[in-house]
């Protein structure tokens, strides 16, 4: 099937206004008759639930954490982009749009990205009005810094905790609506299934993670704001609880999963220290404003970093990409680090690391200034590694961080299942094959504050309110199915723990579908994953019962989904016989090792439809048309 993103025709800059003019409205008195379910309370979910509640809808918000303040958006460090052009350095909405499209290696929808760039300015205004304490200069104006893939300074920040501050702003707005009674909050509650009635999304099935009770919730529409799936790699910068379950189970109910192979490996993470490692920690990209990335020029060099003289250091990003230097985009910087390590020039015990060096910045600006800018990151680095980065360079290595792929949505953020809307990282829409730094926060909040409130009304106005109740047979069946899976997992009583399976899956994914992918490796993964999945259902050990808090059971359900989803990711990577952005197929590279796109054959969104666990999914294509930017070879030289 050829999918239609339903973008408005007309000039790029008029598209969103045109759409706003067409969208139906619902009168204030009628809004309260509609119920909307919002799953997830990170930036996208909290901003959506708060805004929809404010407008007068009846909102039910669900999160699997103990408080909505803990969504993983909270861990975003560096900042949020906006085209304010406050520094007077040549930024504009078009330039932010252009950088984002190019950064995504021409695999995102023009209309969506332009809208995102337009709304970026409203987001900063909104967050300031909420009291977010962004960095200021001495005159009291907002400060900006630079991020990868841009030659202007357009990133707003609150020390190294921008995500935290933006999320607490959205959490405040959400808390206000909970107080007002327009939003009902369900913390420690996990979505297990999407309920579809007559082809439309009309509710969800959830499990109370404290009592184990499984119940259905009916509504007029469902918004999934459940984040990304980087934990399919086991080790990633995502929180331990981040998972693909909500999105994947919606996929199994008919929603298309788009571009699952577009995953982002972030260049600056603290390297793995051993087998016990449970997660990886990001060191913000903003560090690359002042830190210089290097590795020893000679393979045999085993000296400590401070003993390697200047001429024997290879500042490989500055050497290869003089135009952007250390601020080359994430996918490019990650691959460059991998190359250096593959050549045997990596540092640290494992040889999988390169240096991020602040010596020159400390000399130029003084330790105090560096502390003011990045103090919390240096502290965090010291806690984890026991090393002082003011005195010796940090060691960094790429790690899975963000996933550009997600459930397919049209321009209105509605999936192919009517009534199911997908926001934030959980959808696929704006970042193409690679996301630029400081764009995730922007997208989550644009979707939640400024897009969904308009577009969901159009759907609701066409369907009429309050026709659903959770007593319908579709809800009963969904509850039964969810309960049956839980009983099955508990009954296996095998010999291996859930973590062991997750770790094995992660290693298959990282080896074969990580930073460099080949048809051979991907084919191998396609035999290894189903075998591991089969073993899982024979040999996993999930202790305890389903009747109370059971963290192993929660994990088991999520890993069961990762064991299916990983195969989908690999299939997508195998089918996309080109290199673009974070998807690097070794068969398709330029003589200098850069990604070689194939626009003639792959300039489309690949949206997969579920046909059964052991059957190949069905491929649907949404062609990408570029009318306002020229598709070029992405160069940062």
């Amino acid at each position: 099937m050829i999918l239609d993103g339903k973008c408005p025709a007309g000039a790029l800059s008029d598209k969103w206004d045109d759409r706003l003019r067409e969208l139906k409205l619902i009168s204030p008195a009628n809004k309260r008759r509609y119920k909307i379910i919002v799953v997830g309370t990170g930036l996208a979910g909290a901003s959506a639930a708060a805004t929809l509640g404010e407008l007068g809808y009846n909102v039910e918000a669900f999160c699997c954490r103990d408080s909505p303040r803990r969504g993983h958006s909270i861990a975003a460090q560096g900042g949020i982009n906006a085209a304010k052009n406050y520094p007077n350095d040549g930024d504009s909405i078009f330039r932010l749009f252009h950088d984002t499209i190019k950064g995504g290696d021409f695999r995102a929808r023009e209309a969506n990205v332009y809208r995102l760039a337009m709304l970026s300015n409203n987001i900063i205004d909104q967050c300031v009005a909420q009291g977010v304490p962004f960095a200021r200069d001495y005159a009291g104006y907002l400060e900006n810094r630079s991020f990868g893939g841009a030659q202007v300074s357009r990133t707003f920040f609150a020390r190294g905790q921008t995500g935290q501050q933006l999320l607490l702003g959205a959490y405040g707005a959400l808390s206000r609506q909970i107080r007002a009674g327009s939003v009902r909050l369900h913390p420690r509650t996990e979505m297990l299934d999407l309920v579809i009635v007559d082809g439309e999304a009309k509710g969800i099935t959830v499990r109370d993670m404290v009592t184990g009770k499984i119940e259905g919730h009916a509504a007029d529409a469902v918004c999934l704001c459940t984040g990304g799936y980087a934990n399919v790699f086991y080790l990633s910068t995502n929180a331990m609880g981040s998972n693909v379950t909500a999105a994947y189970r919606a996929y199994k109910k008919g929603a298309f999963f788009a571009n699952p192979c577009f995953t982002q490996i972030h260049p600056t993470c603290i390297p793995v220290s051993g087998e016990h490692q449970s997660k990886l920690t990001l060191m913000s990209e903003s560090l690359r404003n002042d830190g210089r990335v290097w590795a020893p020029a000679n393979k045999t060099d085993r000296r400590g970093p401070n003993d390697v003289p200047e001429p024997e250091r290879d500042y490989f990003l500055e050497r290869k990409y003089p135009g952007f230097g250390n601020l080359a985009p994430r996918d490019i910087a990650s691959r460059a680090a991998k190359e250096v390590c593959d050549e045997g020039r990596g540092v640290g015990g494992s040889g999988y690391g390169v240096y991020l060096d602040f010596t020159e910045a400390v000399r130029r600006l003084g330790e105090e200034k560096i502390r003011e800018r990045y103090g919390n990151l240096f502290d965090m680095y010291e806690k984890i590694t026991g090393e002082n980065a003011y005195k010796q360079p940090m060691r960094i290595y790429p790690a899975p961080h963000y996933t550009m792929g997600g459930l397919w949505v049209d321009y209105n953020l509605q999936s192919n299942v009517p009534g199911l809307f997908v926001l934030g990282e959980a959808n696929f829409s704006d970042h193409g094959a690679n996301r630029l730094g400081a764009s995730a926060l922007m997208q989550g909040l644009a979707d939640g504050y400024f897009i969904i409130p308009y577009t969901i009304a159009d759907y609701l106005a066409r369907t009429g309110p309050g026709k659903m109740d959770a007593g319908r047979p579709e809800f009963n069946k969904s509850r039964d199915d969810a309960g049956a899976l839980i009983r099955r997992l508990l009954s296996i009583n095998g010999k291996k723990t859930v973590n062991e399976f997750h770790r094995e899956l992660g290693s298959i994914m990282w080896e074969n579908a990580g930073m460099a992918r080949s048809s051979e490796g991907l084919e191998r993964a396609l035999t290894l994953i189903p075998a591991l999945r089969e073993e899982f259902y024979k040999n996993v050990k999930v202790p305890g019962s389903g009747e109370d808090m059971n963290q192993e059971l929660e994990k088991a359900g999520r890993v069961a989904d990762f064991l299916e989803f990983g195969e989908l990711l690999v299939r997508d990577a195998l089918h996309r016989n080109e290199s673009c952005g974070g998807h690097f197929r070794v068969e398709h590279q330029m003589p200098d090792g850069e990604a070689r796109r194939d626009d003639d054959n792959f300039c489309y969104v690949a949206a997969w439809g579920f046909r059964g666990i052991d059957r190949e999914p069905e491929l649907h294509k949404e062609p990408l048309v570029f009318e306002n930017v020229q598709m070029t070879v992405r160069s940062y030289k």
Partner: protein
Amino acid sequence: MNLTLFVWRQKGPREPGRLEQYSAENISTEMSFLEMLDVVNEGLIRSGREPIAFDHDCREGICGTCSQVINGVPHGPQEKTTVCQLHMRNFKDGDSIYIEPWRAKAFPVIKDLVVDRSALDRVIQSGGYISVHTGGVPDANAVLVPKEDAEAAMDAAECIGCGACVAACPNGSAMLFTAAKVSHLTLMPQGKVEAARRVCVMTEAMLKEGFGNCGNHYECQAVCPKGISVQFIAKLNREFIKAALKAEA
């Protein structure tokens, strides 16, 4: 290294709990404290016993989920560090470690080391925000914020809502938590409009949830993983008195 653990086990909110002894063997100094517990739990699962339930999520010190009292100190021995960021190099081979949940009237135990901290959410819901609607706000640079105020507001806003301050307080007070939010919002010009009302409703909500009063012990500041200063409690008190005077006038 090898360690002996004494861990609080409690099946449910209404069940009695007790300390149980476990051994943690071959622990590397590179591990985080939670990774050490992961290893212990894997062992428990393999031997057919129920693993220790504990709250954790981001494992990078920012989400505020992890919550354990280690050897009597919320978040353990290292200053300004959450449990997830505490590494085993802070312990010695042969150490005995006592691990308990947050203990406070307002934080009932759910299971083992997991407690219910929703009381903190309700304190925020009472008024810990600026009552602005989405849309219709001025340009971000229309209202200037002195750098010192923005920095001081950020010092308070860094609170991760973990509740260690409550667990450390002999009175089970949430004063530092509440004061941090009151101070953050009052220091920003956008938040001054509602300042008087906010400090009153948040203080009232705090008492209603069963948190105790502040007795100036400063245990909260000592254990706060973000190093939030008790000076903000003084600020809350000043704001409270100002609000009371305003109400009388």
